[in-house]
């Protein structure tokens, strides 16, 4: 293992550093079989090989030197990096709304991690103000770092802690809440909060960034401006996700927590409202609602915090040729609830049927959603569907698969009475089931069509 002085180095490379008596941040003069190099030894990512030293040249470029080519390494001095976002005290004023930013990790504000070579989160009001001074025009911002985990490591423990923290903030009179979150599972956390935090009097806005804030074209600053604007000024007292509308730096969208989904692995405009239209657009100038059926901001401090979660619940993506033992093993391992993402209107194949029967007989709650994402489960249309319902699978309307998973875990966290669970599941709490699907709730246009090409030339993507 390497120590601080040889951060990230191992094997041959570490041996070479020790042999020549130099370490990380040493300003060195290197003679090698490939030539002569001068620069500062940088820490090495622990995922990289053990054969090279990383050197920062005076021109600012980094290069790697193969330790097998080294003839001599001389230390000329040392220069340590202090990577710090300039911290300035966040200016506050009594006539601005108070907004709390709760941090969970993610890349809303971040810095380089030499250990992994990746970016790690870092934030405080002062740092954020140093990086995004516009925030001071919007609100009085305070922050609290609840945890520092990447999006994929968010789970029930964090959902519950977050819900409780939100409850405390509301009780303390905050005017709006922003939650910084990694984008990968933001929609899972959003729906968990939508069920755990009911009837909030203020906006609760989740935000992240698709391009980390260490790049000039990052969406982080703009998302932060949009989300604090929504939290500070919006009349929409719901849990929302605030991310880029188009990939262009134009406006953000506020999505209802239970209808939003990350739809592209890397686009800025990855979050889309599915089967409905978003709640509102947001720019630095304010929020413009796209619909009126939202919960309004209130002056009272009442909120229902319902922090429940049953861990033995799963989401199973059906595929042709699925074998029944998949379901059997879930039951064997004590799972209490299964959400299936079925094909088409909500189907799975016949060989799985006996396993479904065994599962329901064992008291497992099974709900059907659609892997098409758009549209409702319709199990009356074909015999397959009727068969499945007879075997105990309950259609979950147009709940998104991930939302149904979170909701089932939340419901089973409250009760083991499956009738009660069924009531909870099929009663819409936060817009997760909608009575009707608007005609413009499904818009996936195909590129290449002349009318679409025409549209793309005119509208900023």
């Amino acid at each position, binding site marked *: 293992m390497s120590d601080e002085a040889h951060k990230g180095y191992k094997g041959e490379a570490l041996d070479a550093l020790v042999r020549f008596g130099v370490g990380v941040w040493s300003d060195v003069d290197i003679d090698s079989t490939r030539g002569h190099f001068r620069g500062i030894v940088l820490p090495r990512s622990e995922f990289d090989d053990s054969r090279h030293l990383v050197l920062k040249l005076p021109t*600012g470029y980094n290069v790697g030197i193969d330790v097998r080519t080294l003839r001599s390494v001389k230390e000329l001095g040392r220069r340590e*990096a*202090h990577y710090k976002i300039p911290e300035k005290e966040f200016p506050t004023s009594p006539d601005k709304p108070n907004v709390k930013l709760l941090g969970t990790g993610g890349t809303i504000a971040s810095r380089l991690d030499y250990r992994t070579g990746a970016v790690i989160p870092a934030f405080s009001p002062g740092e954020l103000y140093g990086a995004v001074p516009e925030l001071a025009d919007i609100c009085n911002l305070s922050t609290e770092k609840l945890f520092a985990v990447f999006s994929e490591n968010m789970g029930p423990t964090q959902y519950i802690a977050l819900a409780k923290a939100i409850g405390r903030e509301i009780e303390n009179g905050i005017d709006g809440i922003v939650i910084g979150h990694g984008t990968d599972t933001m929609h899972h956390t959003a729906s968990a909060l939508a069920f755990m935090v009911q009837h909030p009097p203020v906006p609760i806005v989740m935000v992240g960034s698709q391009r980390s804030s260490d790049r000039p074209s990052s969406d982080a600053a703009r998302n932060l401006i949009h989300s604090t604007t929504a939290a500070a000024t919006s009349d929409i007292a719901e849990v929302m996700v605030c991310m880029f509308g188009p990939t262009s730096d134009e406006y953000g969208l506020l999505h209802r927590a239970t209808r939003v989904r990350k739809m592209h692995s890397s686009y800025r405009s990855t979050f889309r409202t599915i089967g409905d239209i978003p709640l509102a657009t947001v720019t630095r100038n304010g929020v413009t609602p796209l619909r009126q059926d939202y919960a309004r901001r209130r002056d009272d401090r009442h909120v229902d915090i319902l922090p429940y979660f049953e861990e033995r619940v799963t989401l199973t993506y059906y595929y042709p040729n699925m074998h029944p033992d998949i379901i059997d093993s879930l039951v064997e391992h004590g799972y209490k609830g299964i959400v299936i993402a079925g094909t088409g209107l909500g189907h799975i194949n016949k060989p799985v049927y006996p396993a479904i029967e065994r599962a329901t007989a064992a008291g497992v709650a099974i709900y059907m959603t659609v892997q098409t994402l758009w549209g409702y489960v319709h199990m009356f249309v074909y015999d397959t569907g009727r068969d499945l319902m007879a075997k105990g699978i309950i259609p979950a309307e147009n709940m998104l698969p991930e939302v149904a998973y979170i909701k089932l875990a939340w419901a089973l966290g409250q009760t083991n009475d499956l009738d009660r669970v069924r009531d909870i599941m099929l009663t819409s709490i936060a817009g997760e089931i909608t009575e009707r699907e608007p005609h413009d709730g499904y818009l996936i246009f195909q590129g290449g069509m002349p009318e679409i090409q025409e549209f793309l030339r005119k509208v900023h993507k």
Partner: protein
Amino acid sequence: MKKADANSGNLDSHNPLGYVTRRDATADTYRGLGFRCGLEVHQQLRTKKKLFCRCPAGIYQDGADYDAQLVRHMRPTLSEFGEYDGTALMEYKTKKNIIYRIKGETACTYDIDDTPPFAVNREALGIAIEVALLLETSLVGELHITRKQYLDGSIPTGFQRTAIIGIDGRIPVAGKRVGVRQLSVEEDSCREVSDVGHERIYTTDRLGMPLIETVTEPELLTPDEAAEGANYIRYLTRSTGHVNVGIGAAREDVNVSIEGGTRVEIKGVQHIRWIPELTHNEAFRQKALLLVRDELERREGDPKTWAPKHAPLSGADLAAVAPTAAGESSAAVICLPGFSGLLAFPTNPGCSFADEFSDRLKVIACIEKPNMAHSDDGTSPLPRATWQKLGKRVGATEKDAVLLVWGPAADLPTAIETVIERGRLAFAGVPNETRKGLPNGTTIFERVLPGPDRMYPDTDSSPIPIEEDAIEGTRARLPQSVEARQALLRAWGAPEDTHAYLLRRNLCPLAEELVASGMEPIAATTLLGHDVRHAMGDREIDPARVRWAVDAARERALTSDVLPVLAPLALREPASSFDELLTRAEYRRAAEKDVKAEIRREVKRSDVRRPEARHRAIMGHVRAMAWGNVPLAQVAAWVEEATR
């Protein structure tokens, strides 16, 4: 120029700058200035795909031909050492809407920064290693992709992905070794379509194409050496046969400084022939700025106590300047203490110190020109009385210069800040700048010169080792060095005016093949360097086609004087068969005996008396028939014999 004040001392002469034209300048002129120049030569590589994505490379579209547009804004970020870069902060001040025009054929979601980079293009890497070896650099053990920030928007990410291949190389220039600081491989940027006010438009066709950048040390000591160095690097990269040629495929950034001055980078020089004039003028611009500095020091002393004043104009004051201020709704007047007479000081042919302010107003405050006027300008349409009145608003005295700026109200605060900042920089002499080279040999301000603080490791990619066997494999296949080629051309006695063309077009290997196959070196180099070049201009030459034409002529036992016609013809008509080319060239087959018979007939028929004229006339008649069949010298001998 307005006659400078009496107190401007040595500046008050006919040519205070001591400017000489480049034609009149000698090596001593540049030695006296302390002229130093370094080059950054960018060369596109000829690869099938772009550097970090799988888009095709080398397809260009007109700026008006696009499928979609998107908008971005750039914010400065911190360097690895926690510093903000000066350029970054300047670009951020400009608050530009950057619009990218995308064409589906040439740009993907990587190009618009909506997808992380794919693995680096190995084909590009191979070519870069070859050039690194030709430049005699020390090759790195591992490539680290680094982000070089560009906040002008020329790259949608806000940075260029770049990596060092080798450092510390050398090239021969003007009989000495000039150091090569580094060779890097990087992605090309967008092409600018327009830049007006707060909107800059780019097209993304060129974006992401693989480039190599060769950076020399500032060891080129005259403008001609700078051009020679640029040419050498061009010949060297082209000797690989794997680089693009044509407009925009090679671009030079030229760094110039003089004694007491600062490194100024002249960017995007499209033609090497522009380098001497641009660097010459830049050297004198720096000298002018140093003279202005000395004069300011003399007049004002400590710059810390220098206190410029400004005031907004309204009502009658604004109305009085309206015709000058292009009808803009807002204007301000600024007093630059101690600057009297200096704004008119010449910096370059046709330019004065005032242009330094006006250029920055255009770039930083986004106010199109004309964007200012000043009290030193003898040609100002504003009456002297108006200037005096304006001066009073800001407490200006005889010693001071008064500057009037105008523009949209929202941009005026930045405009005032920009003017004052430039005024302050005058005390330091030559500001670190990137300047754009113009075809007339002068330059304009482009941005503040970025430093090493704009570099940041690319967190989206892992280091790429460069293994020893990859280097050795490439080393074994290296083309002959440019220096050796130059020596060979001299040894052959190839006409002087063919050298540059043969090197530039990478035709030395072809010339060597022709010589090896029996052609005289002078004939081979003349064929390529004169005949082919005149016929083809600067178009690409297919060596195989030339060889084919030469071989076909030899197979048919045609004389070598057909080649100056047939070789260019073969290149111009790449699809024609050799017989078709012969027909096009009006060649007719004729046996030696037929030519001789024709000579005899002509001798009988000719009634010209004077021997030389008679010889000429007969030659004229027989030449077409003999062309390609009998060497002309032989024909002449036969004519001589027949007429004796």
